[in-house]
């Protein structure tokens, strides 16, 4: 076998000659190592195509060193000759190489199923369409199962651990406070800057507190918080559940007779649905404070005056509307995250895919829901 000390050996070469008219003698010389540039079996095949032979005699006594490179060559030659009905004799093949060839012939598993079809473009397209249909059905089933799980929870019959719900509530709410506060404060600042810049052209920059207040409380706080949660909690849920699938923890739940949706999805949906409105209330405050920071510094408005103006412009309906939206967004983030996690296949790559898809799907779902809310609120004059 190849060793480092054998590096200076002559390169691999083939010599061919005819013996007795019907026999092709193939002599191999030099070092036949994978790392070297080896002659392919096609050289011998071309010679046999040019003039056929009843037998090939393979002589390897001049081979100085070899590894899998020689085995590949000999195996290819044997396969070719067998297909052509040409006998092969190899009187001086190294014993270990003989054993490797024997191993290749004999160690095949008895029930080797045909490999799954990957197919051409159309076939792959068809398979994708069928897979998509399957996914839609699975998504419907998932929503149905979750609804059932939630209703079982309401009557106290859902199977999940209370302490898990506690930890999830903490993870979804208090732990997210710093990032939610920061992002919403900055959004408040941005809105105030845009508002002042535009309103100043009409001499109406005094109304920036109204605009920031209403925008933040009605929509922006809920929207921005939900997007933050999609990237934070949604991705985490997807990764957790996908990993549990890879490590067969989900299978273990199923075999115990515990619904994974009830045990894993319901507490997460409940946690985010409950905690998002609280986060959004806090986000409302931070957004308004962000606006106030700009209003008080750029317009020299007193903080108390700015806040009073905001309070006069924002109605209880605006606040409740924002909270209703936020609860919906929270539920959507949890649903998309857990669904993507449970959809993952049993491979480590799928954990990353699930997390990415959870974020994308979550944000798209939030934006669609936001659009629908705007339309419905508009219809009802809200």
């Amino acid at each position: 076998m190849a060793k480092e000390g054998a590096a200076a050996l002559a390169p691999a070469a083939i010599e061919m000659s005819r013996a007795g008219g019907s026999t092709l003698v193939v002599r191999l010389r030099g070092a036949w190592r994978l790392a070297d540039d080896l002659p392919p079996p096609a050289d011998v095949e071309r010679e046999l195509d040019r003039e056929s032979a009843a037998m090939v005699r393979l002589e390897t006594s001049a081979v100085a060193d070899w590894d899998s490179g020689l085995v590949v060559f000999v195996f290819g030659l044997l396969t070719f000759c067998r297909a052509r009905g040409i006998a092969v004799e190899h009187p001086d093949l190294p014993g270990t190489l003989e054993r490797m060839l024997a191993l290749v012939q004999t160690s095949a598993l008895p029930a080797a199923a045909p490999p799954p079809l990957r197919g051409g473009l159309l076939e792959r397209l068809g398979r994708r369409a069928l897979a998509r249909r399957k996914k839609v059905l699975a998504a419907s089933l998932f929503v149905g199962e979750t609804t059932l799980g939630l209703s079982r929870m309401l009557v106290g019959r859902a199977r999940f651990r209370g302490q898990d719900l506690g930890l999830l509530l903490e993870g979804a709410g208090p732990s997210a406070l710093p990032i939610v506060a920061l992002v919403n404060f900055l959004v408040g600042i941005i809105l105030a800057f845009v508002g002042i810049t535009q309103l100043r052209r009409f001499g109406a920059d005094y109304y920036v507190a109204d605009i920031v207040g209403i925008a933040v409380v009605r929509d922006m706080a809920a929207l921005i918080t939900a997007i933050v949660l999609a990237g934070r909690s949604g991705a985490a849920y997807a990764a957790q559940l996908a990993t549990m699938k890879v490590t067969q923890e989900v299978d273990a739940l199923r075999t115990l007779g515990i619904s994974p949706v009830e045990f894993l999805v319901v507490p997460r949906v409940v946690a985010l649905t409950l905690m998002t409105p609280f986060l959004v209330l806090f986000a409302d405050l931070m957004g308004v404070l962000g606006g106030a920071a700009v209003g008080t510094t750029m317009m020299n408005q007193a903080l108390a005056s700015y806040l009073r103006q905001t309070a006069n412009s924002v109605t209880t309906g605006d606040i409740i509307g924002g909270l209703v939206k936020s609860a919906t967004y929270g539920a959507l983030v949890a649903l998309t995250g857990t669904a993507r996690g449970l959809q993952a296949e049993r491979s480590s790559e799928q954990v990353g895919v699930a997390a990415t898809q959870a974020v994308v799907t979550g944000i798209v779902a939030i934006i669609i829901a936001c659009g629908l809310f705007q339309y419905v609120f508009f219809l009802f004059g809200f």
Partner: protein
Amino acid sequence: MAEAIVGVRDLTMAFGDRVVMEHLDIRIEPGEIYVVMGGSGCGKSTLLRHMLGLQEPASGEVFYGDESFTRAGASDRERMLRHVGVLYQGSALWTSMTLAENVALPLQQFTQLRPGRIREVVELKLALVGLHGFEEYYPWELSGGMQKRAGLARAIALDPEILFIDEPSASLDPPTGRRLDRLILEIRDALHTTVVVVTHDVACILGIGTRALFLDGESRRSIAEGPPAELRVSGPDAVRAFFAGGILP
């Protein structure tokens, strides 16, 4: 005595302050199937991790041939490990790749072979372990035994001089485990590879081991070394008890 191809000198393994095994001396000779055995948690797999550089010794050293692996720099370690193949307990196949891609990766990374030649070598290696025709399967589409075979094909992709195998029969049924044992023997004979097996499976130890080392978790020392059949009959009490507990009357 032949020159050792791999071994450890006065090796002490620890996790922080907790010493797992101390003062180990092992010399493994070319062509051996050397078995590291012992009860669960005695440090067998930890020893393997030390020999592969996945964990650093508390003291002592690992060596390959006449070179110290422990004291070697990153590039020297990489060169030494180029002659090593590893079959992990859970196969550790990359699940996003087909079997062919799994076996091809070391060839792509460490040789200058053309894609066509790599394909031929991959088919040969998979055929060697009985997986001809499964090239385009993903690992998760296969049974545990087949995954082990595929892991073995990847481990021998570069014709290693030393093959490390961690718990070959773990999570396999006994007949599948024995088939894998036979395959390891055949691969050793065909490739002239030195094999280091870490296991607590008595049937595997007696079936393929040419020499075995017993690690005793209680005393944190190796307490016996020799041919498994001899250790089973005339080894220390703990070793004989280990063998007796592993075979039903």
